[in-house]
């Protein structure tokens, strides 16, 4: 039994991928504008701002106003990218996004950093684990959670060419760069990372690397795992998931999010409608986070490769 393995030579934060993508858009697309609610450094927006000061809007600590201004900027042909933490990009401004952006069909890109537990020491006030659910419930909203620096950069560039509201979720910690720098980002198109026959692992965001690590451990145990990188949670690449479980007969979903409202539930819906399949969830268990280092938190809340291995072994037994 052989398997495709992934290695890395460098680690970087996904938010820097966003910053790099935004800077490139600044050079290539004159309609792209950026807004920030007092978190320029955290969102890595400095380069765009330096090169395009006239296309940057510092809103101050006023996220509701930022969402409304972004909606207004689209009227006049601009493509606004808003930047703040995931918590303040979603829950804090849900009705502004709902009415002024989603229902109004405005071409706003809501770019959200520091998502999930890996924000770390700041604790639960800043660690949103509900944002995927909040955003995927909005009709017409695209929800994207890329896995590494390269993919986040590519996603940032790709969403400028998509006409409609997008939620782009990324994070703070340094994580391995393992996807090719030149990989084309296609919204809604899953990427199969490894071929496998015993279990499907569908992962998003930071959990994709953990899923690849898990697949190595499983391989050593004689279990063949098919890992799918599902960077787009909505619209979900249903065909890829159905095709994979047709072969493996069971599935683990993995995400840095509450299992209520997350990727796992979206996958469950697809499978229950098309191909009922045993499923295990790697996600937080209806809880808030807490202070700690990212690695400590991911271990405590069961969001690392060890947790994926355990769930994979469990779900195989349910076949």
């Amino acid at each position, binding site marked *: 039994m052989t398997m495709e393995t992934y290695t890395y030579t460098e680690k970087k934060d996904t938010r820097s991928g966003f910053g790099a993508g935004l800077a490139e858009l600044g050079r290539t697309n004159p309609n792209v*504008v950026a807004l920030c609610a007092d978190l320029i450094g955290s969102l890595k927006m400095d380069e765009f701002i330096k090169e395009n000061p*006239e*296309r940057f*809007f510092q*809103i*101050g600590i*006023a996220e*509701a*106003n*930022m*969402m*409304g*201004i*972004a*909606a*207004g*900027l*689209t*009227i*006049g*042909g*601009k493509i*606004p990218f808003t930047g703040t933490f995931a918590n303040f990009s979603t829950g804090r401004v849900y*009705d*502004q996004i*709902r*009415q*002024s952006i989603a*229902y*109004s*069909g*405005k071409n706003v890109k809501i770019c959200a950093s520091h998502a999930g537990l890996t924000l770390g020491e700041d604790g639960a006030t800043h660690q949103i684990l509900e944002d995927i659910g909040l955003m995927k419930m909005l009709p017409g909203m695209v929800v994207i959670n890329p896995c590494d620096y390269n993919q986040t950069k590519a996603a940032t560039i790709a969403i400028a060419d998509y006409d409609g509201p997008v939620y782009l979720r990324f994070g703070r910690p340094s994580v391995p760069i393992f996807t090719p720098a030149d990989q084309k980002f296609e919204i809604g198109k899953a990427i199969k990372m490894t071929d496998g026959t015993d279990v499907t692992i569908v992962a998003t965001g930071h959990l994709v690397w953990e899923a690849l690590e898990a697949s190595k451990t499983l391989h050593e145990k004689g279990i063949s795992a098919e890992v799918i990188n599902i960077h787009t949670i909505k619209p979900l690449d249903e065909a890829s998931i159905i095709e994979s479980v047709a072969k493996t007969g069971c599935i683990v979903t993995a995400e840095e999010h509450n299992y209520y409202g997350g990727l796992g539930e979206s996958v469950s819906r697809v499978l229950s409608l098309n191909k009922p399949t045993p499923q295990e969830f790697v996600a937080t268990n209806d809880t808030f986070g807490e202070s700690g280092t990212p690695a400590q938190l991911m271990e405590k809340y069961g969001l690392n490769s060890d947790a994926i291995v355990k769930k994979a072994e469990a779900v195989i037994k349910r076949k």
Partner: protein
Amino acid sequence: MSNTQQLEDLTIQVRRDILRMVHKVNSGHPGGSLGCTEFLVALYNEIMDRNDGFDMNGLEEDLFFLSNGHISPVFYSVLSRCGYFPVEELNTFRLLNSRLQGHPTTHEGLPGVRIASGSLGQGMSVAIGAAEAKKLNNDNHLIYSLHGDGELQEGQNWEAIMYASAKNIDNLIATVDLNGKQIDGATDDVLPMGSIRAKFEAFGWIVIDIEEGNNIDAILKGMAEAKSKTGQGKPVCVLLTTMMGNGVDFMMHTHAWHGKAPNDDQLASALNQNPETLGDY
């Protein structure tokens, strides 16, 4: 359209439209709509520099944003009477499959509407964004917006008001409909807001009063003054004192008609007070 008599005739016809629209479906918001009828008639026919037809981006023309979306009847009537869509479509207000939803929306593609509103307090931010886009596009046209006075209780307004002066949004004229009423009663009883003028001034805005907000000449004069204050580095606020339910005696001096439709007898009485001018839809 240029003389006051024509604007007066249109005003009466718009009142009839509002009353007939809400009566037909026994729902909607006639009070605030009637209070802002003269303003929207004057705005769309005399004050704004509008292009023919409708383009969402609204390049090289003045734009209007309605923040207090519940006064959709007057908005729809004025838009249709200005040619954005057929007046007959007013017949579909609040009906299933209509483009004339209870509150204005872009979702159904109704020409003339650029943003959904109804959940209060969001329109000023949107207007500021559109004003910023005008500046980026080197487009010297203006952005107009309308807000309820009770609506100012929503905190997002104050984020927007602070931003607009700090960032020199001087191509924006935001009008507040001072009718002194909201659903639960007088604004002074529900949540007294003190001096709205003093608040806007403290935030660095230029403030213009139109004390006779249901008098077309007063509106034209006040808005001309407001326009003359644009381009000076500061946003402009117009405080428009209006009478809720204006033009229908039993709907005035009360907040009872905020969100209530007249019955058959009440409609007949209201229409008698506003004889047909340009023709009913």
